[in-house]
């Protein structure tokens, strides 16, 4: 320990001299140095009380995590389903298909009709100015044989117009042509999933397969795409062959599963439906054993339904996440309240040394904000990681929803401010003597 003399004789500026107090700058506001002091003190406090900090941080983290993941997943699902609806190409589309008999009487009556057949097409698909395309389709389940083995699948007879109108692009090789239909060629376009199943990574174009004893040459492969309805599923997992070939080789009774009709204008729907029904009734000896489905309206209904459900989910999920965040906010409140009573002495001392009420207030508020920010940061990181992990199952990947992220941060910080305010106010109002007692 130095002797007092050493202090007297110590070199350097005369710090202990009060005769000429140097005027020093005194900033009125909250300086950067103060900010750092506050953040640092906050971190030291958090570190000193790890358990309670971790509890609160976990709650805040979970809240932000939930908000981020939920908004992002909802976005991803929206994307996926919206893409699906768009991919169905059901705008201005009706479908005519055999009707299932509802009563015994109907069943007996329907039996008198030959049903929806290839032969109906001549009359049914006679050119009409309101119709852009008639797309007949016939389908049955079969087993196909390739060099590797046998596979259960579907063979589907369609016209050359089917793939372009129904939005089934070709990935490799070529699609079916009118020429194929005319020549009744035994060629096939395989669905993307079936192609992968049968041939693995290899190029199937030019390979042969045998369907119900009939050899077919593969001329093309469909491009992989979204599966959003049954028809689409069969197409991706089956074989498209020329309609005429199908009728000759696959089904001697010439049954059609449906005829999809693309309209020039959606508002012609009523008239076209009536026309279609009229034409089939004639062919079916006056028996109305088919029905018309307005796919456009059906899709719109389904989409509307979906949007409604999404809104419901959004509300449920956001309130869940909000609740977790709220609990996190209460956690902040209790941490700050405990901290406030733990640190009465410190508050008093800081005030005795010259901290003003609002400096103490800001210190406590900032500590709450630092706590919330750390929680939010952890939640953001974990949320982003989960989004990345889930990314593969969404059409456009799963990116963190920036709005959700912003919302989560705003809610977390706002809660910290709101719940930090009360302890902060209490701390700032303490008189230095009271606090230090």
């Amino acid at each position, binding site marked *: *320990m*130095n002797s*007092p003399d*050493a*202090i*007297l004789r*110590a070199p*350097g*500026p*005369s*710090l*202990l*001299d*009060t*005769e000429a*107090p*140097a005027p*020093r*700058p*005194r*900033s*009125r506001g909250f*300086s950067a*140095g*103060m900010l750092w*002091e506050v953040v640092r*003190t906050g971190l*030291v*406090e958090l570190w*000193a009380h790890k358990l309670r900090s971790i509890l609160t941080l976990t709650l805040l983290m979970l809240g932000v995590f939930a908000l981020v993941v939920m908004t992002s997943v909802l976005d991803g699902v929206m994307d996926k389903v919206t893409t699906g609806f768009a991919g169905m190409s059901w705008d201005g589309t009706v479908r005519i298909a055999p009707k299932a008999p509802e009563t015994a009487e109907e069943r007996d009556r329907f039996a008198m009709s030959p049903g929806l057949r290839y032969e109906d097409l001549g009359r049914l698909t006679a050119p009409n100015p309101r119709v852009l395309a008639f797309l007949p389709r016939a389908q049955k389940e079969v087993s196909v044989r390739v060099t590797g083995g046998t596979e259960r699948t579907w063979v589907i007879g369609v016209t050359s117009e089917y793939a372009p109108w129904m939005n089934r692009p070709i990935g490799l090789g070529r699609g079916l042509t009118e020429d194929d239909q005319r020549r009744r060629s035994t060629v096939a376009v395989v669905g993307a999933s079936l192609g992968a199943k049968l041939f693995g990574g290899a190029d199937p174009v030019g390979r042969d397969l045998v369907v119900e004893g009939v050899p077919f040459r593969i001329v093309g492969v469909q491009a992989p795409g979204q599966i959003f309805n049954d028809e689409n599923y069969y197409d991706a997992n089956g074989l498209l062959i020329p309609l005429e070939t199908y009728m000759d080789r696959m089904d001697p009774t010439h049954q059609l599963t449906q005829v999809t009709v693309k309209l020039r204008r959606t508002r012609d729907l009523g008239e076209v439906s009536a026309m279609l029904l009229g034409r089939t009734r004639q062919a079916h000896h006056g028996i109305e054993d088919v029905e018309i489905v307005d796919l456009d309206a059906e899709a719109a209904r389904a989409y509307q339904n979906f949007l409604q459900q999404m809104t419901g989910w959004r509300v449920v999920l956001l309130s869940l996440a909000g609740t977790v965040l709220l609990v996190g906010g209460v956690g902040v409140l209790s941490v700050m309240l405990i901290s406030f009573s733990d640190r009465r*002495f*410190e508050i008093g*001392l*800081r*005030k*005795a*040394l*010259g*901290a*003003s*009420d*609002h*400096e103490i207030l800001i210190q406590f508020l900032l500590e709450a904000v630092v706590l919330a920010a750390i929680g939010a940061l952890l939640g953001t990181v974990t949320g982003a990681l989960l989004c990345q992990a889930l990314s593969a199952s969404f059409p456009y990947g799963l990116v963190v929803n920036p709005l959700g992220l912003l919302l989560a941060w705003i809610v977390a910080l706002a809660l910290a401010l709101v719940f930090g305010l009360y302890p902060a106010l209490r701390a700032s109002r303490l*008189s*230095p*003597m009271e606090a*230090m007692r």
Partner: protein
Amino acid sequence: MSTIIRTQGITKIYGANGAAVHALRGIDFAVEKGEFVALIGPSGSGKSTLMAILGCLDSPSAGSYELDGHPVHGLSGGELARIRNGKIGFVFQSYNLLPKASILRNVELPMLYAGLGRRDRRDRALALLEKVGIADKADKLPAALSGGQKQRVAVARALANEPALLLADEPTGALDSRTGAEVLDLFRELHGQGHTLLLVTHDPSIAAQAERRVEIRDGLIASAEGAA
């Protein structure tokens, strides 16, 4: 010589009605600039209460207090904080250091609230620690220091903003006599440098070293002696 402390009829009543404690009952008292005054008196006589009022840590129930020529009564909380920060250096019996902050940061604290820049704070705090003889402990936590060393830190901190008045409430009360004497030497040194010093003590040998002794009994000035 100008007057730094002037009080008139200061009273302090704790509690209310039946349970009221009259800690101070009319203190008329003055300290001139550059003086070294010892405040003595039995336990419970009101010394700490008076010091808190003089240090603007508490307000009197009645009476007037002029610090450095300016009445303290009616000042806002912010203005009082500035006075505590810039005009007064307070040394407590129990050191009152922030346990989780380094010695250096403890000394920097009043300068932080004064709005001093980072470098200036650091330089000045180091110089002050040098002056009180414990510069080598700058990065330690208070727990690593002895009582005497802690009180030196507290003195360095009290000097941080070059206060016009140093108030010390039993600064040697928690120290053994040898360390206490060393700390007292430090105070005498400061007095020699021109600091105004008001020091509460129970120890007659310490009180004897002051220029002037003021005794409080039962919340009243009982006697004053020594050069004024």
